[in-house]
């Protein structure tokens, strides 16, 4: 039996629920507690009683001063169950935990890497800041990091029977967003020094951080892994290094593991021709901006004979407007036509729906699933 066409999945991150955002730091408003309960019941979260109950002993009902570290951890676990149930309820084929136990994709990962230290705070945009790290020693994944990713996956595994995909920030992006003190040699031209430092750091990160983590997840039974690489397509001169880092990272995967890569908001044409050598089996890419370069990239995937599947982003994560199932169907069909093979098309949002409120994210995912169903009908499924 062949796999069904146009499998659906989220890209990784979902916004933390309101009740978790201030948990332990500020008193929960009654309305927030009621919303948490109502949303939990709607999603059929069995653990909703642990948040609030008639006897007033729920996590969200506890006085601020009495909340323990164990309570905080449990709150994150329950948020993970909410995220899983939300994806199941929307009808997604492939799930992950919504990254409810992570803060964001860069600093969070860097904290688990030996050889990286905080350099300082920088502005990302508006009032959003991030901590930038310096690579000032040989990099390797810490025992704490290895244990975290294993535990995070095992917890999600316990709570769903559907295909699960853990997500990891890729070597290229981690290095691209860091200072490279350890790898700078300070001889020759600064530009050449920087380029060499970057290559050494990216390869080392792939070998000593991402690959071991993928190996751990393989051993734990993950059928799929996703490497997030938003920086990958920003510098075409380095696309060879990026692809090499992917291949080295995927050496940690078991035979038959789905090896996904997420790319977003870049000019994907810059990845060619090197991406033809990649061992990735699925690329999840942002698509709804319908920029010329995205169409062109699809054409190039076909022209280069790349047999990896393409996850087309059919949901815009930057607006609250809910895409109609018909529009999503049309996008899917267009991608299938451009790739020349519907079995190569997978369906996802442009990027993680962390930017949208849970109720909007849910509505978008439901619409996405309906759109995929409509597209399958065109092929008699």
């Amino acid at each position, binding site marked *: 039996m062949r796999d069904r066409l146009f499998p659906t999945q989220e890209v990784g991150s979902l916004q933390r629920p309101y009740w978790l955002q201030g948990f332990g730091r500020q008193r929960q408003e009654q309305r927030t507690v009621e919303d948490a309960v109502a949303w939990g019941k709607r999603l059929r979260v069995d653990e909703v009683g642990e948040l609030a109950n008639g006897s007033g002993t729920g996590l969200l009902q506890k006085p601020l001063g009495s909340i323990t570290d164990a309570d905080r951890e449990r709150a994150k676990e329950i948020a993970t169950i909410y995220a899983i149930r939300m994806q199941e309820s929307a009808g997604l084929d492939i799930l992950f935990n919504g990254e409810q136990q992570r803060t964001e994709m*860069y600093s969070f990962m860097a904290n688990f890497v030996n050889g990286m230290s905080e*350099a*300082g*705070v*920088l*502005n*990302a*945009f*508006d*009032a959003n*800041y*991030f901590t*930038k790290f*310096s690579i000032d020693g040989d990099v390797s994944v810490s025992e704490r990091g290895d244990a975290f990713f294993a535990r995070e996956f095992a917890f999600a595994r316990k709570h769903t029977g559907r295909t699960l995909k853990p997500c990891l920030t890729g070597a290229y992006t981690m290095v*691209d*967003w860091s*200072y*490279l*003190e350890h790898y*700078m040699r300070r001889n020759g*031209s*600064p*530009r*050449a020094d*920087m380029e060499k430092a970057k290559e050494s750091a990216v390869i080392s990160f792939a070998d000593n951080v991402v690959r071991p983590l993928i190996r751990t997840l393989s051993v734990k039974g993950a059928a799929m892994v996703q490497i997030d690489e938003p*920086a990958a397509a*920003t*510098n*075409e*001169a380095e696309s060879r290094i990026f692809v090499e880092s992917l291949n080295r990272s995927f050496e940690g995967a078991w035979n038959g593991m789905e090896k996904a890569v997420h790319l977003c*908001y*870049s000019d994907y044409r*810059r990845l060619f021709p090197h991406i033809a050598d990649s061992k990735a089996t699925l690329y999840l890419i942002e698509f709804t901006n319908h920029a010329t370069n995205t169409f062109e990239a699809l054409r190039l995937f076909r022209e280069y004979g790349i047999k990896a599947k393409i996850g087309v982003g059919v949901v815009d994560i*930057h607006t609250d407007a809910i895409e109609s199932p018909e529009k999503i169907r049309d996008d899917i069909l267009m991608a299938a036509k451009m790739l020349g093979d519907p079995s190569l098309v997978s369906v996802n949002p442009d990027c993680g729906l962390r930017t949208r409120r849970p109720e909007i994210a849910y509505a978008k995912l439901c619409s996405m699933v309906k759109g995929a169903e409509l597209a399958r009908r065109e092929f008699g499924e």
Partner: protein
Amino acid sequence: MLTGIASRSSTTAKVHRLFRDGKASERELRSEIALDTQKIVAAQKGFAFVSGGQLDWLDLFRPITECFTGFRNSSRKSGAFNYSYGANESVGPVTRWFRTNTFYRKPHVDFRIDCAGYELAEIMPDVGRAVLFLPGPYSFARLVDNSFYNSDEALAIDYSKAIAKSSEALRKKGYSCILLVEHSVGFDMSTGTFKSPDWFGSAISAVKDSGTTLGISFPKAEAGRVVGLADGTEADFVGIDALYTEDLRFRTEKDLLLGVVDSSNIRVENVADLKADIEALVKSASAARYYIGTNDRLYDVPFDIALRKIGALSEVGGVLDER
């Protein structure tokens, strides 16, 4: 001199987040920004032109989008710049700033760009003999969305005219230098998409005002490929990225701003190395007069590192002056 906006301190970052969440007042935020500005200005001992780092600019386009007409969802009415203006999503989509993990909101030009002339000066702090950083006309045309003008040329020229209109009020406030930063030139050269626009000289001429020193800088570009762009214009000096430049043998008819302090890495340069780099550049390149500075904005290194880098620049300037 510095060549772009600077980063904010971790304390200011914290208060900025609180302000966003409604837990700190605009006054508190302004107070932290003012403290950071003072520190940055104080570090620039001996600089030809001083900058406060433009720390209250949300990116290189805001508050231009508030000061000049022509932009979609511009919210400024009158009076002093309100920090919360321009912070909302309606300004434009979050867009990656070249090859960094930082972003800007892409402005959308909906109608004619213009201004009365007082607006930019009104929002700038008084820091002495100062330099103002603005996107160069080429970069401006490349980095905004435009549904009003029929050509990049018309867009760039009106933008340049608005800057020129602002010059007198800026000069009265102490801003006797304007540095047009052309980030897109180096980037487009690196991707093979750069085509020298035949309107570049006209756009620069449209900015030029007799009392203002005008510079153009080209971060992340090979100097030999960009100095010629400035040579045909009315700019007074051209800024080059000495760290990105491999071939030091280039000539320009303009004064030269040597970007020798690395704005992308946290290692603070030592004065002896900087002095040697500068001497090598002066020996190889040819220009009438030299400034020294950073190779790009100090927005990509933490505030305390930025201060130390400015300090190194100030120190080497002193050493060279003694000679």
